[in-house]
């Protein structure tokens, strides 16, 4: 068995001891774009937590042992106090990552983020060309602005990721985006998992199994042994609610931002009160008891199960199978078999 990295060892310990090592903070559901696949379009917007409240939450998370903090939205740069929030987080020594569409950033903002010592910024690209990207983001000129932001970040020495969701609408773009990321001095991160914007059915934009095969093969995912989890019994489970969690713009603590099971609200209770409450213990127990069909599945070793996607695709049955991820696992199994021949 390959030696585990320090990060893997730390994550395993954190998961066993329920230390929320990694927290994703959604700062607002507001967004200046209207991306075609967005699952937050119908989310109730409500009042966002103030920067002072976020400062208090950071203090609590630092005491709980959190190291990684990711800020996303909506679009986090829509908050006028966003840089102050990042500054408050950095004063508690978190490893800060940001996910953004990049269209609102200026060179000065990026310089300040660089001086604050953030770890990385991920910028969402739907396509490698402006026509398709702008069409899918719902805003003309957005591609040029996101690309400009990418260049500001790279120039400022910030690790920058081109983030991409492969879908039926942009299937041929991933390899061109990978080349673009490389040429621009950034990294490339993509997958075909899409959370549906309508509950109870898979997203209509999820690629089919043949496309999954083409995509996974092109990205060399199937040929990398490290992709397959070391312990097959772990393929179905994840660390949501144990070593990771999410916080919504209104202060709801959830196991993961994609799995909207409300565990408690930080406007009413402290983080530790929520984290050690019976509701969370119950969730952790439930997480160990997934659908029997998944437990007995013949291709479970190829599964990249996500309870959040299962939740949305089945209208709440997060312990059940996800049609989209079953299709993905099938593609992986097919690639593995053809490689073995």
């Amino acid at each position, binding site marked *: 068995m390959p030696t585990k990295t320090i990060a893997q060892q730390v994550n395993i310990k954190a998961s066993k001891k329920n230390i929320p090592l990694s927290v994703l903070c959604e700062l607002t559901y507001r967004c200046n774009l209207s991306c075609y696949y967005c699952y937050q379009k119908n989310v109730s917007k409500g009042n966002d937590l103030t920067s002072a409240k976020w400062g208090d939450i950071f203090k609590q998370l630092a005491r709980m042992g959190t190291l990684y903090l990711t800020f996303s939205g909506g679009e986090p740069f829509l908050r006028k106090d966003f840089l102050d929030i990042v500054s408050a987080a950095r004063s508690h020594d978190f*490893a800060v990552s940001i996910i953004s569409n990049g269209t609102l950033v200026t060179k000065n903002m990026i310089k300040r983020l660089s001086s604050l*010592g953030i770890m990385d910024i991920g910028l969402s690209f739907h396509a490698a060309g402006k026509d398709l990207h702008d069409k899918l983001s719902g805003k003309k000129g957005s591609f040029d602005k996101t690309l400009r932001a990418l260049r500001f970040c790279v120039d400022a020495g910030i690790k920058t990721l081109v983030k991409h969701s492969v879908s039926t609408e942009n299937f041929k773009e991933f390899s061109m985006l990978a080349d673009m990321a490389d040429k621009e001095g950034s990294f490339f991160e993509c997958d075909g998992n899409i959370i549906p914007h309508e509950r109870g059915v898979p997203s209509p934009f999820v690629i089919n199994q043949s496309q999954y095969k083409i995509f996974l093969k092109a990205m060399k995912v199937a040929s990398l042994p490290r992709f397959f989890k070391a312990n097959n019994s772990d393929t179905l489970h994840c660390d949501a609610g144990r070593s990771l969690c999410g916080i919504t713009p209104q202060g709801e603590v959830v196991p993961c931002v994609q799995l909207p099971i409300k565990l408690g609200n930080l406007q009413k209770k402290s983080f530790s009160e929520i984290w050690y409450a019976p509701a969370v213990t119950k969730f952790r127990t439930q997480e160990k008891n997934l659908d029997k069909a998944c437990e007995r599945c013949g291709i479970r070793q190829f599964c990249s199960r996500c309870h959040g996607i299962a939740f949305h695709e089945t209208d709440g049955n997060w312990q059940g199978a996800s049609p989209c991820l079953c299709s993905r696992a099938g593609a992986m199994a097919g690639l593995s078999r053809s490689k073995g021949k």
Partner: protein
Amino acid sequence: MALSPLDVVSRSTRIAQRLFEERMLVITAQDSQLHRFNEVGTFIWQLLEKPMTVGAIFTAVEEHFDGVDAGKSFQEIGDFLVSLEKKKCVSICPPKQ
């Protein structure tokens, strides 16, 4: 690299850190690498909350840990500080005149 006892060691501002199971975890921003320190490394890192001279670090380690071989520890601590500088966790500068 030979260290002088008067050299000043300062933590980088481009790091993230957390005490985890009594060991310090430090991540450097430029390469996203996670570093985990042992007991002595954690003690030294905590000393560096404010910039400190190499000499003062040696003295503090000797006082804190019983039975330390002064000559050996001098070498080991020096190597550790130099490795921290290589990883961009700290900067080491000669004292201001």
